[in-house]
């Protein structure tokens, strides 16, 4: 059985803001199908009473005082922006 279909690959690509050609969609479907099938070996493991681990350290929320301090100035922050106008980043129109 297919673990992932070509239509699903195209949908996932859209969610991830990637465009894929038909040829790429075919190739990625085949490869992702194999990888997901490989990943399903995890189903052999009994995890009924196991809590999920997202972090290995005993991590606590880190808080600091909310004080103003110098940070990047506008020019520096915009230095790598591909397009800008009046000290702001510029993107193609969002609304038609």
């Amino acid at each position, binding site marked *: 059985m297919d673990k992932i279909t070509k239509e699903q690959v195209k949908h996932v690509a859209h969610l*991830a803001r990637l465009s894929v050609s038909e040829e790429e969609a075919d190739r990625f479907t085949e490869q992702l199908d*194999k990888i997901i099938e490989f990943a399903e070996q*995890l189903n*052999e493991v009994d995890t009924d009473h196991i809590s999920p*681990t997202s972090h290995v*350290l005993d991590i606590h929320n880190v808080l600091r005082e909310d004080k103003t301090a110098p940070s990047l100035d506008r020019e520096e922050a915009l230095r*790598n922006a591909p*397009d800008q106008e009046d000290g702001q980043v510029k993107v*193609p129109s969002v609304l038609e």
Partner: protein
Amino acid sequence: MSILEESFSSVHKKLENKEIKVSELVDASYNRINEVDDKVKAFLTLNEEQARAHAKTLDEAIAEDRINGMLFGLPGGIKDNIVTKNLRTTCASQLLDNFIPVYDATVVEGLQQASSINIGKLNMDEFAMGSSNENSSYKVTRNPWDIDRVPGGSSGGSAASVAAGEVMFSLGSDTGGSIREPAAYCGVVGMKPTYGRVSRFGLVAFASSLDQVGPLTRTVEDNARVLQEIAGHCEKDSTSADVELPDFSADLQKGVKGLKIAVPKEYIGEGVKPEIKDKVMDALKVLESQGATWEEVSLPHSKYAVAAYYLLSSSEASANLSRFDGVRFGVRHDSSQNLIEMYKETRSKGFGDEVKRRIMLGTFALSSGYYDAYYKKAQQVRHLIKNDFDDVLSKYDVIIGPTAPTVAFKVGEQIDDPLTMYANDILTIPVNLAGVPAISVPCGFSENMPVGLQIIASPFDEKTIYQVAHSYEQATEHHKAKAEL
């Protein structure tokens, strides 16, 4: 022997005695790069002008007998996913081809405070995704021991530059083995510190719960010295551990008498080449002769680590790499004049296939209807893998096994088969999932290629790893072998 192949302490003495200048070290580094980097292809961007100016400043300090900094004047290279102010940082991706960071990573500040010299930025698999350097969008770094073979990855440039004698040390990053595997393939020493030991501020994030920066060097002693300068609590990284910073070199001379070593049967069984297993057994004999004892143990969930890792790391990557949208930085492609299409065009032209594959795998594993079956399941298995390590490390001082199941493979041999490529990291990935520290040190040769010995310890016990690794290294000659280019 080139001055760059001498130990840190030997070079430091020569600088103090004014037998050499920092500018000569920097000359030696760039001369060697000019001589061999056409073949090795380790560097993406050189920092020559700045490095020479820095050397001049340090030479003036020597003239006034002001030698401050534990890495004073030593030429090093930095993996290209660690941001360096005003020096191009690409992550080996076309998407960041023009990216000039406006700040330094905390580890880069650490190296500067130690007065080392930044020679340049090192090649890698794009966004650190890969085990061979073949996923760099610029060029494939070659193994200095055999230029038809890969250097390993993703910190391939970091390992190859040290093995080729271009720099005295380098920084890499390790998410599933990306420091240790190339260190093993290139015959150098590579340390993946405990998760949280080294700041990730300024390390371009791949999988945030797994990524760690660490040093690659020719010897164990030098490695401990670099880690000393980059480790420690950092306010800018909320996962940085606020724990005591020990002197990593304190126990180097202590030997291994009475230490208990665990050897997981999963690390010397099926899938590991017999010649590699033999080298590990030889190393255990050396440590035994020095007074350590070893026993076989089991890390029963190791076989599931690769599957869990690819689900978890790809899921984290799919979120982390969403920032590369062509808005605030990077190379924008915008033929449509439409925002969504601009995102898609920028990302599709900017990312290579392996990065796209992992973003899609991660997006799929996190998507509605699949989250529990894939992402949550992998997190539960991660918990079991961590428990395996906790159990063994509560009874033993270190765990020892090979770093990689084979020696470096030929360029092109595995690139078309992602699953075969992923299997190269089968012995390193469990360590990242458990968050524990591990080193790879040279332990001999097979097919005339270096073999790496992996030494793993409890969280924040890098000191014991260095102790064992140094004791072994001093009894052997492997680290003195030199790649002929």
